[in-house]
């Protein structure tokens, strides 16, 4: 998952408006870089094929 710079910029602008975040222009490049890393790593999460019945672990117990 490797969204384009334009796609990420659009996502950042829309989410910032929805969430009420005020981003200084000079912050946008590093926010975009961080979000790009997250999407690349999310692709590794998506990659794993799990059955519909797989249970999540939101409250984890070891």
């Amino acid at each position: 998952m490797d969204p384009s710079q334009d796609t990420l910029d659009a996502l950042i602008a829309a989410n910032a408006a929805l969430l009420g975040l005020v981003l200084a222009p000079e912050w946008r490049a590093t926010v975009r870089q961080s979000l790009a890393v997250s999407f690349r790593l999310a692709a590794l999460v998506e990659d794993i094929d799990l059955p519909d019945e797989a249970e999540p672990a939101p409250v984890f117990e070891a």
Partner: protein
Amino acid sequence: MSSASQGLQTWATAGAIAAGVASGTHSAERVVAGALERIATLNPTLNAVTAVTRDRALAKARAIDADGRNGRVAGPLAGVPFAVKNLFDVAGLTTVAGSRINRNYPPASADATLIARLEAQGGVLVGALNMGEYAYDFTGENAHDGASRNPHDLDRMTGGSSGGSGGAVAGGLVPIALGSDTNGSIRVPASLCGIFGLKPTYGRLSRAGTFPFVSSLDHLGPLARCVADLALSYDAMQGPDPADPVCTTRQAEPTAHAIARGIEGVRLAVAGDYFRRGAHRESLEAVERVARALGVTREVVLPKAANARAAAYIITATEAAALHLDRIRRVPGDFDPDVRDRLIAGTMIPATFVAKAQKLRRWYRTAILELFRDVDVIIAPATPCSAPTLGQKTIVLDGEELPLRPNLGIFTQPISFIGLPVVAVPIPVEPLPVAVQVIAAPWREDIALRVAYVLESMGVAVAPRPNLSYPDL
């Protein structure tokens, strides 16, 4: 005091201090005064300590000495100075958690559970320690308080986010410090500073009275210069605590009496595949030294470790963003910029990824527990490299230049993701030490500590002393 006894006090183990205080050969007040003097002298260089609890510490030490004179039995940590990452509540201090924002919050009304437990056994809190802002950090750098500096090379990172904890212990300020570890924040500074660190099983130690980062991944634990001190402090902190909803209801399972029991019959293996890719020469050499010393020939593959690490990253990014959303809205300019921009990005990750990451977490846990049917301990590098230079922004891993901040934890994240207990053991490779993770099955801290103790006894694992000038006490 002679230079020999001065050296003894600076580098004395917690166990030796407590034994000396218990027998009356050491005064707790003198021991604590020595720690305070070292902090005053060395902290301008190391920048490990952000608040000193001088009055409280001296009062506590005097009370311990008075108890001794009155024939009361001393606790197993009698007179042992310790310090805590500044996300722990300390009564009367504001819990800053490495931030500027929290400085406006009222002081804590009580100590965190783990501080109270250490002090109940005779420990003496001497201060709060520098850390990466809100623990979202592997470097030990901090825009507000300045970087923690590595005692072995002042131009290098301590690692984080428990950077002050690493620097204070490696630098000889205190024998024991407490830190937190969400994705590696005890094990990374233990590695870069060349000391021992224990990240217990998720839920083993109470987190009550500490500022959270990612609740479903947050652990607390000790850092020390020897395995016995890790076990001593860990034992003092164990036990249920209703104030932390994920703290286990298991009773304490003491370890200190059994660390020298040896490892006959313990099945050991080295982690292959993912845990060999990206590691620099020194980290691979450290693993090799441990494997050779223990006679480990077996290799195991932790299935889908890269995917597990990715899931830990996604859960961390989103839970942390949710925790701080209001502060990001109100005062974004007051954050450390390196932290703020990651938190902002975290608010924008689709929830579908998070739900999938939580499913992957359970799948991965099942797969790893299956591995532990055939092995008792897995050996893996703690960090991909030794201490980077302060200010360094990127790192080359497996031929690819990547951002440093999130990637120092590539080998720790897949382990804490499912709450496994780990002892980080420092290996004195050149030119700077680096640690190896000794990983056990859930609730088997005892086995990891026994393996670490064997490595220490063989001289393979050691916390090297830095070349700093210590006060003449």
